[in-house]
């Protein structure tokens, strides 16, 4: 065409002009499949959406693939909920208040390892852990300080607590009551997911059977007295952190969820009394579209899995979740790349329609976040909410050929692998430490091998490795100073209910009061009951076979040597993202993958053997010496000491 032949564009309507020639590229991509075993195509088209029910789904309607609520973020964005806590209750409280003033919308409390495992801060076994990876809470005084100036009737509080769930929940209820807030007004979540503790996170205290009973007790109590509070956060996060792929994380988390539903029903509850308060917790890794598909598939599968229980309340089938960006994906070198990683993951989480989100800080592979790095992490979410425009429309990726296909693939992978096997084995609670661990271990080993060989690229580690260390300020917790401060506070009577480790506690944990249909007891009595729990850390002498603890049983294993919680046993908790990062940084070696803190942590985790309660039960002996706090031990330890 010559210039003179040009059409008169001014007179041409858009619908009068044709499009360009269609372009079709629809072959397989020349690359290895995803770690989940899904082969990606170079491009996806209309045929990839055929055969899915995506055109029939709407947000807020079962099976909730497009989001659990009708308008999702268009009317209310997700809750910015940053997991934080360190040092003393005073310091953590100040940190929370600063963050809330700067745009955070909900609290997520990180407890230190000592609190997780039920130790007071002055116990000799936890000397190195106090205040390091979370806040140390020993008493009602600590809890009071922790929430000082934070109105618990208006603040949703999430607490990552599993083993010592009873005293911590009790302390929280009492702290609220002292603010004049009744339990029924409390909103938030208690993690209370003991199954994944046995599998990956390792801060359990009791054997599986009594642990599951506690879970059921918490269900009963919260369904009766705390109707707005999520009684559990069924967590896949730690599985992905320990090496699981998205499909394995999804499969085992949903299988755990089913086990908790059964536990609730076995506790005598109608499914609709507790299922609407079940919540989930997923990790969001770097493969953004896979993570979006995972969250969509999770909601679809949960609705399907709940259907046989015949819930009448549609909320019982609705999967609501908290998400956290991956700690594993962060690197200890070239840490500014972590901002990009966290941003990509946060974007995936919100495109997958999470209900709340934690974004990691850029320095979390080195230490706990500073104010500076915490601000960037929080602003990552605020920029997404207020600047990116993604809240306008529910499920903006709905209909995408790629995403819809991937959603179905994720569902198929999950259903094809783990769930049926879990059913065959009789549920997640019955095979802790057995097959449940195998899938992510294998994946983890393969992943580390690919990193070491350079096949899998980690920027700053095995590609574009920096010549010099990052110049970022890091937060250092002076553990000795924390313990000294807590000790002096205790002497001054601040922690009135804290007792020295030598104090004699009541012999065994008591079940929480039987919940009633409504909390009809006078508040003063309820408070007294909760205080009693608050003062009484759980007694750790449950027997390894899951039977009720007794002195006679405990006396049978007096020869057992209890290892200290430092060293190996402390490292077992390294799958906890918070504790893992800071500790591992100092141990990074020159190997490419070991420079990634999380990889190192995962490797450590793989070295350990999980306690196999079933094997020790044959001896009928308790795994601890009377008068000592709990220890977890491997089969080897128990066998040799028996």
């Amino acid at each position, binding site marked *: 065409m010559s210039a003179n032949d040009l059409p008169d564009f001014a007179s041409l309507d*858009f619908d009068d002009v044709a499009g360009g020639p269609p372009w079709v590229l629809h072959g397989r991509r020349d690359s290895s499949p995803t770690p989940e075993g899904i082969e990606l195509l170079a491009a996806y088209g209309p045929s990839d959406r055929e055969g899915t029910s995506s055109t029939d789904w709407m947000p807020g309607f079962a099976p909730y693939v497009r989001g659990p609520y009708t308008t999702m973020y268009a009317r209310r964005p997700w809750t910015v909920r940053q997991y934080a806590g360190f040092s003393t209750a005073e310091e953590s409280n100040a940190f929370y208040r600063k963050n809330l003033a700067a745009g955070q919308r909900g609290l997520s409390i990180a407890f230190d390892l000592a609190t997780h495992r039920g130790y007071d801060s002055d116990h000799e076994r936890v000397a190195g852990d106090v205040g390091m990876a979370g806040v140390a809470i020993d008493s009602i005084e600590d809890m009071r300080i922790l929430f000082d100036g934070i109105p618990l009737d208006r603040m949703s509080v999430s607490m990552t607590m599993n083993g010592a769930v009873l005293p911590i929940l009790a302390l929280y209820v009492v702290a609220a009551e002292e603010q004049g807030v009744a339990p029924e007004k409390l909103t938030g979540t208690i993690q209370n997911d003991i199954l994944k503790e046995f599998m990956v996170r390792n801060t359990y205290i009791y054997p599986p059977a009594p642990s599951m009973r506690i879970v059921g007790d918490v269900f009963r109590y919260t369904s009766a007295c705390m109707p707005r509070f999520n009684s559990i956060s069924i967590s896949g996060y730690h599985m992905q952190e320990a090496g699981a792929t998205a499909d394995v994380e999804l499969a085992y988390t949903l299988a755990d969820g089913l086990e908790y539903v059964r536990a609730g029903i076995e506790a005598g509850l109608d499914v609709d009394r507790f299922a609407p308060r079940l919540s989930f917790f997923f990790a969001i890794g770097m493969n953004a579209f896979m993570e979006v598909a995972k969250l969509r598939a999770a909601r679809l599968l949960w609705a399907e899995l709940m259907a046989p229980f015949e819930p009448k309340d549609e909320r019982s089938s609705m999967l609501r979740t908290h998400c956290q960006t991956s700690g594993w994906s962060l690197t200890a070198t070239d840490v500014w790349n972590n901002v990009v990683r966290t941003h990509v993951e946060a974007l995936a989480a919100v495109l997958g329609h999470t209900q709340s989100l934690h974004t990691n800080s850029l320095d979390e592979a080195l230490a706990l976040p500073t104010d500076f790095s915490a601000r960037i992490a929080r602003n990552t979410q605020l920029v997404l909410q207020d600047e990116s425009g993604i809240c306008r429309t529910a499920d903006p990726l709905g209909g995408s050929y790629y995403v819809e296909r991937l959603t179905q693939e994720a569902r198929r992978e999950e259903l094809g692998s783990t769930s049926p096997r879990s059913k065959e084995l009789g549920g997640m609670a019955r095979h802790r430490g057995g097959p449940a661990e195998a899938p992510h271990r294998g994946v983890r080993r393969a992943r580390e091998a690919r990193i070491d060989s350079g096949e899998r690229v980690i920027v700053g580690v095995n590609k574009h490795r920096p010549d010099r260390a990052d110049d970022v300020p890091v937060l250092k917790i002076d553990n000795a100073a924390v313990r000294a401060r807590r000790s002096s506070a205790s002497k001054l009577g601040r922690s009135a209910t804290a007792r020295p480790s030598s104090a004699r506690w009541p012999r065994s944990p008591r079940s929480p009061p039987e919940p009633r249909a409504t909390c009809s007891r006078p508040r003063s009595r309820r408070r007294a009951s909760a205080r009693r729990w608050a003062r009484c850390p759980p007694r750790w002498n449950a027997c390894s076979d899951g039977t009720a603890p007794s002195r006679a049983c405990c006396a049978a294993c007096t020869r057992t040597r209890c290892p200290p919680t430092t060293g190996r046993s402390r490292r077992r908790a390294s799958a906890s993202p918070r504790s893992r990062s800071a500790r591992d940084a100092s141990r990074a070696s020159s190997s490419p993958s070991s420079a990634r803190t999380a990889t190192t942590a995962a490797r450590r985790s793989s070295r350990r053997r999980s306690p196999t309660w079933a094997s020790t039960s044959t001896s009928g002996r308790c795994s601890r010496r009377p008068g000592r706090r709990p220890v977890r031990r491997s089969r080897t330890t128990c066998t040799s000491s028996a």
Partner: protein
Amino acid sequence: MKQDARLRAATREEWRERVRAELEDEDPDVELARRTPAGAVALAVYGPEKGPVGDRYEGVRPDAGWVATETVDLGDDDAATRASDARRLGIESLRLVDTSGRADVAGFVEALDGAGARFVATCPRILEAALRSHATCVGAIDPFRASTLAPVSAPIDLAVDARAIELVPAGVLALEVDASGLRERGGDAVLELAWFLASVVERFRANAGIALRYAVRLATGRDVFEEVAKLRAARALAGTLGHMLEQERWSVEIRAVGLRLALAEVDTATNAVRASSQAVTAALGGADAIEVLPFEGATGRALRLSRTTHAVLRDEAWLDAVADPTGGAWYVEDLTDQLARAAWERFRDIERAGGLARFVATGALESCLAEGRSARDAALADGSLVVVGVNRYTETTGRAGR
């Protein structure tokens, strides 16, 4: 895969009824509809009734992956060092500008040529010197670029295109439409697209049917899906234009660069998130070349992050794995269509006004940009346009990074 029969489908009408009840009888398609920065309407939910419109948007992206690009000013004292660092960190294409007008282009290119870089020359002098040095070089010649960067009174020399084309072997990319400057000065996404169409047509007229291959350089701002839709619309409109110009060897390379205006001058560390967002957006939109902005000026850490971001997005996030990953998404398809239509209408307005050169010469462009700037300032002042750390969440409690 069999799904549980108890999970029945929901219709859009059921959804509307439920939301209407939640909104106390307001129509959700009215009450919850929002406008994007460029004026497109976004509903609260989309479904198949808002699907792809014909074949126009089928396959709007011909290939997966992008070329990592960085701009180097040859007039800077440290240009050679900076370019060398960029190459070492995986930057594949160096976009050369020379603000001094006196830089030793040949010396610079020869020093780097061995490293296998692709050079993008933004003026004939650089293009000529680079080609003389036998470097791998493409052109980014745009006679209208100066008009996008500042008000100009000098006449626009459209003959520069012909000279550029003479310099490069037949079929090699020589021409560019750089619309990114418009966004920095207050223009919106629709104006960018219309500018692209009008520029190609104007240059086609002036240079007797020269079109061949073009590149279009667009800024990626903060609104993720609008920018994704814009990049998709640019490719669809390019297809339409090539078809109308009857160009057999027609192709358009889309180059995306982060929008500097979207970065904040305070609390600059948060710009690392914004720069990442711009890069992700460009990748999702199918840009063929992406340039990531340093988040706090030319500091070492900011430059390094702007370069390594490409590798993180490719190697760790797999964003180069699938072409047009948002294709088929009802919302994205609808936005793409809205932007393409709006851009076509704006293009027709420019044509009615006598073409692009006249649009610039009469001051119509400047008034259009001034209007955009005023609207942005007003939105910032009344809080309807939020910039984190600037007019919301302004409390900076943290220590500044060193």
